[in-house]
């Protein structure tokens, strides 16, 4: 029999070949796979599968049409995802061998290629790139009922690389069972506390109040210092020697950041509490060793490097390393926000190091620091701990007013000189100077506390264009080095004035509502039509800004001040105002995704990642982006409703 070309087989192969993971397979393998394929047709409204159905033995490739995933909870069915041409259906359920977590309905007439799972599984096992793709991209979309994606692909038995193993389940602190935690009341005697510690063989005991809130901690070294070396009576209550307040972190927050906190504050343990403050029940006490056991490898080494570094070249080298670490972490799927926290800790340490070096240098030259409180503040994105790339710096300086204008100017001159030296060093380390001159070396951003507070209280001035921008940057301030109380007094002013000034809040709300989601009515991205970035999409202005501004507005409006980052603000909002929790969780997740895309684009291109080419994103990322813009619409609607902005105006 003459075997001429087989058009149908070729057609299926060429359809598969266009889309990952099939694009990563060999042509021959695809031929083999297609030979056993079946073609299925679904008309609009047909179910591909129902939630709870056991997975069959087949993977579906959507060759034409659109399938919608619905998640059913009780009586409510919610659209959670859309699959269109080129997407693969059912892979994750097969993979994990568990029932489908969603119902899949054909949204239009569909043609599906039914492929045999064992063959695909074998091909994935053979092909590292394809397996990696499946692990990274397909599973992300199917996270119903999970807070963190479990990206495991154990079924294939593939060895994970070190970084994957490190990141898997390691980037967050998971508290151990609470009965493991050793605690006592403040009235307990020192002897009794020490006996409990040695009986349980733990290095510390937590002192808690009746609500199990941590109020202090006693460690082995406290006992050595006070009782063994010192002469404190063992019969005294434990509260006499405890260290207070306790440094707390939140459960499921970044373990690397917690490690860095410990290193920075030179303590051996942190207390894990329900909401990350000392005002909630304690869940666990983690030592550095505990965290290391959880994480295996972490960027804490950079802190030591920074402390030891002396020369600008070395600073730059360390910063380059940090950026490289950021890229591998992001590529391995780390959250953009967690990474922001880590980088902020590292860069803060660098700034502190540079400040003390610059001060020493000035002192050597006979220029002595004025004896007044001062504080170096991070503002803007730096203040929110979102600066992973060194494409920008935002900082400001505050020093206490003396009441004497002449003396203030003298002090300002000193601090400006200090800031200039620090910033020169930062530039040498690879940071770009702020385009908007938001830098402590700018007299506009180096002021006395009285000047800052006066400016912040002048609400009429604030709502005008440029002042508003300046205020928004300042609203995200965070202490980096210096006097905490001074910085706090300014933050206090921010919250007081903004919270009580309707005109400021309205001005902020209007800015948020003024940015429409960047999708046209066909669901395509609106891209830039002018300037140097035609055909690209401004992810900062159109994506990040509205979500970030909304978080800030709500934080100011409700007086939520525990967190500095956008993600943290959304979380705090979700806890403080359960009616907004759905929006808050979605917005946090969406913001994280946008941040990741932006940072990855920036790292790949070596710029600030502001302009993203939609065509360069994976299909999954495109789909997720579209979902994020739905969230953005929700956020805007919520702002409109709360601040009574007429959608037509």
């Amino acid at each position: 029999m003459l075997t001429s070309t087989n058009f149908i087989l070729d057609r299926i192969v060429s359809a598969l070949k266009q889309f990952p993971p099939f694009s990563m397979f060999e042509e021959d393998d695809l031929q083999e796979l297609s030979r056993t394929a079946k073609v299925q047709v679904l008309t609009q409204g047909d179910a591909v599968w129902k939630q709870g159905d056991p997975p069959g033995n087949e993977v579906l490739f959507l060759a034409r049409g659109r399938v919608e995933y619905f998640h059913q909870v009780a009586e409510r069915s919610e659209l959670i995802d859309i699959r269109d041409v080129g997407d693969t259906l059912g892979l994750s359920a097969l993979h994990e061998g568990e029932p489908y977590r969603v119902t899949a309905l054909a949204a239009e007439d569909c043609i599906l290629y039914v492929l045999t799972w064992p063959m695909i599984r074998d091909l994935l096992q053979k092909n590292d790139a394809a397996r990696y793709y499946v692990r990274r991209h397909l599973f992300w979309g199917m996270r119903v009922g999970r807070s963190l994606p479990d990206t495991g692909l154990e079924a294939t038995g593939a060895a994970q690389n070190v970084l994957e193993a490190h990141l898997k389940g390691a980037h967050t602190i998971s508290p151990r069972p609470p009965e493991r935690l050793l605690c006592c009341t403040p009235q307990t005697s020192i002897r009794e506390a020490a006996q409990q510690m040695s009986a349980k063989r733990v290095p510390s005991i937590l002192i808690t109040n009746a609500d199990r809130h941590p109020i202090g901690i006693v460690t082995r070294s406290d006992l050595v210092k006070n009782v063994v070396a010192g002469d404190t009576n063992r019969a005294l209550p434990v509260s006499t020697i405890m260290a207070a307040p306790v440094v707390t972190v939140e459960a499921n927050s970044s373990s690397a950041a917690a490690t860095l906190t410990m290193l920075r504050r030179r303590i051996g343990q942190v207390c894990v509490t329900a909401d990350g403050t000392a005002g909630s029940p304690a869940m666990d006490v983690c030592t550095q060793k505990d965290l290391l056991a959880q994480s295996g490898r972490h960027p804490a080494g950079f802190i030591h490097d920074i402390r030891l570094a002396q020369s600008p070249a070395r600073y730059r080298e360390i910063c380059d390393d940090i950026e490289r670490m950021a890229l591998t972490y992001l590529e391995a799927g780390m959250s953009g926000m967690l990474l922001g926290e880590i980088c902020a800790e590292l860069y803060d340490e660098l700034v502190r190091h540079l400040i003390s070096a610059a001060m020493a240098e000035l002192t050597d030259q006979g220029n002595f620091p004025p004896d007044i409180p001062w504080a170096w503040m991070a503002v803007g994105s730096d203040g929110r701990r979102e600066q992973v790339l060194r494409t920008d710096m935002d900082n400001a300086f505050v020093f206490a007013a003396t009441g004497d204008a002449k003396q203030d100017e003298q002090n300002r001159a000193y601090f400006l000189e200090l800031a200039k030296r620090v910033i020169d060093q930062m530039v040498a380390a690879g940071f770009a100077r702020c385009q908007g001159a938001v830098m402590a070396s700018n007299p506009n951003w180096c002021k006395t506390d009285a000047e800052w507070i006066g400016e912040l209280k002048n609400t009429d001035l604030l709502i005008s264009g440029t002042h508003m921008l300046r205020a928004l940057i300042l609203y995200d301030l965070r202490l980096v080095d210096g006097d905490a109380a001074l910085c706090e007094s300014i933050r206090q002013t921010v919250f007081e004035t903004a919270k009580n000034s309707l005109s400021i809040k309205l001005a902020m709300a209007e800015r948020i509502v003024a940015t429409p989601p960047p999708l046209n009515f066909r669901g395509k991205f609106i891209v830039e039509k002018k300037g140097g970035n035609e055909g690209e999409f401004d992810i900062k202005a159109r994506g990040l800004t509205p979500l970030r501004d909304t978080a800030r507005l709500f934080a100011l409006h409700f007086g939520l001040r525990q967190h500095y980052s956008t993600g943290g603000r959304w979380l705090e909002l979700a806890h403080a105002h359960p009616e907004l929790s759905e929006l808050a969780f979605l917005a946090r997740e969406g913001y994280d995704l946008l941040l990741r895309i932006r940072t990855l684009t920036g790292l790949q291109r070596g710029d600030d990642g502001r302009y993203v080419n939609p065509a360069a994103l994976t299909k999954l990322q495109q789909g997720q982006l579209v979902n994020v813009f739905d969230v953005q619409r929700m956020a805007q609607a919520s702002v409109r409703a709360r601040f009574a902005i007429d959608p037509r105006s």
Partner: protein
Amino acid sequence: MINPFSKKEHPEFIRDYLIAAKQRKSGKRLLSDERIVVLDIETNGRPLESDEILSLALFEIVNGQIELSRQRKWIVYHPDTRPTRATAIHGILPCETEQGVPEPELLKELIPILAGALVVCHHIRFDLSRINKILYRHFKVRFKTQAIDTAILAMHELSAFHKTGYPNQRAPSLDEICAQFNLPATARHTAEGDAFTTAQAFLFLCGRLQRRLGRPIRVRDLPLSEF
């Protein structure tokens, strides 16, 4: 020499086929339980008396899925065909038909596949009459089967092709049906391309029918033609 009056003289596969064809099946059978064979032929485009099958392709639908592993395709042996106008359409050259399978061989493979199956074609009369002709020529039997014409099914299911009563209304072409479903027409005017497209169109039409009925399709819900 085959004696047309003696069934004993038939080869075994024809006998089996005749037995299978005799069993009348109930119209209550569910469509999903049926083995469906979608086929298409390419000919040299002459009137029936002088027309010859040049190639034949078929797909089987089992459980509502087109099984690619059971795809079959034949080029039929014709020693000295001349290019006709149809050659320009289907693109089967004389040199290919010279290497094809002889008609009896084709039938020997084809008939067991068709036995007991529900046959689906587009413009069924055209295809089946040509198959019938060579079946009679070589084995002196007539093709007996229940078959479904996607053109007629489309006239039932798609409002665009409903019978309107105006004279000379013709059944829709495969291209027209594809346009209705927005189906990509693959390798049109090759036997396998058309058979595959017909199979997809058939499944879409069945989907429409099932939605209209609101229950699983039984064989008698379809416009069956008897041959």
